[in-house]
């Protein structure tokens, strides 16, 4: 899942550490979310959305569904 977390954080001039403090998670977690290696839980996604005053869908963009050979 892709997300705009890095962009939103940069807009506010926050470091990863600062964002992690605001979210109550570790800096590693913020980094893993930004790089797309980790998808946050729903409560954390809500907290991120609330922090940036956006909806979850505005920040997180699910990968397009894999095309299957429909029968």
């Amino acid at each position, binding site marked *: 899942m892709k997300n705009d977390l890095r962009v939103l954080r940069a807009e506010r001039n926050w470091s990863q550490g600062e964002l992690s403090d605001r979210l*109550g998670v*570790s800096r*590693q*977690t913020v980094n*893993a979310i930004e790089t797309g290696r980790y998808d946050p839980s729903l*409560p*954390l996604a809500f907290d991120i959305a609330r922090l940036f005053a956006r909806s979850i869908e505005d920040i997180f963009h699910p990968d397009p569904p894999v095309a299957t050979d429909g029968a």
Partner: protein
Amino acid sequence: MQSQSRTERKPDNRLQYVLCGVWILSYFAARLVLKAMGEPAAEWSRLAVALLPLVPFVLFLMTFIRSIRKADELERKVHLEALAIAFPLGLVLIMILALVQVAIPLNTDTWSYRHVWPFFFFFWLFGLTVARQRYQ
């Protein structure tokens, strides 16, 4: 939705490290004492010395489990994946030993419970390294 802090950002693990150190020291101390006591010593006293390291170990485990509970969601996922790697490796080791023991007599001086359990620790460390690598 209720918002709550999901982690203690920088948990104080000093007690955990101290207990781990005490456990390791007491383990080797117990082995040395048992060796020094020799066979003539009463069985109950040998048993008491042998089980003494369990006290700091259980305390260490309690602090470790508490630290996992306080960790944030990614850290908990990493620990879960580490166990998912370490547990099957432990099973494989035990299974191999069991089969080899059926095939040939193993020397208990070199292959016994006291030689096997440290492998579980290293399997867990390996699992932890692999899991952490995935999310870096």
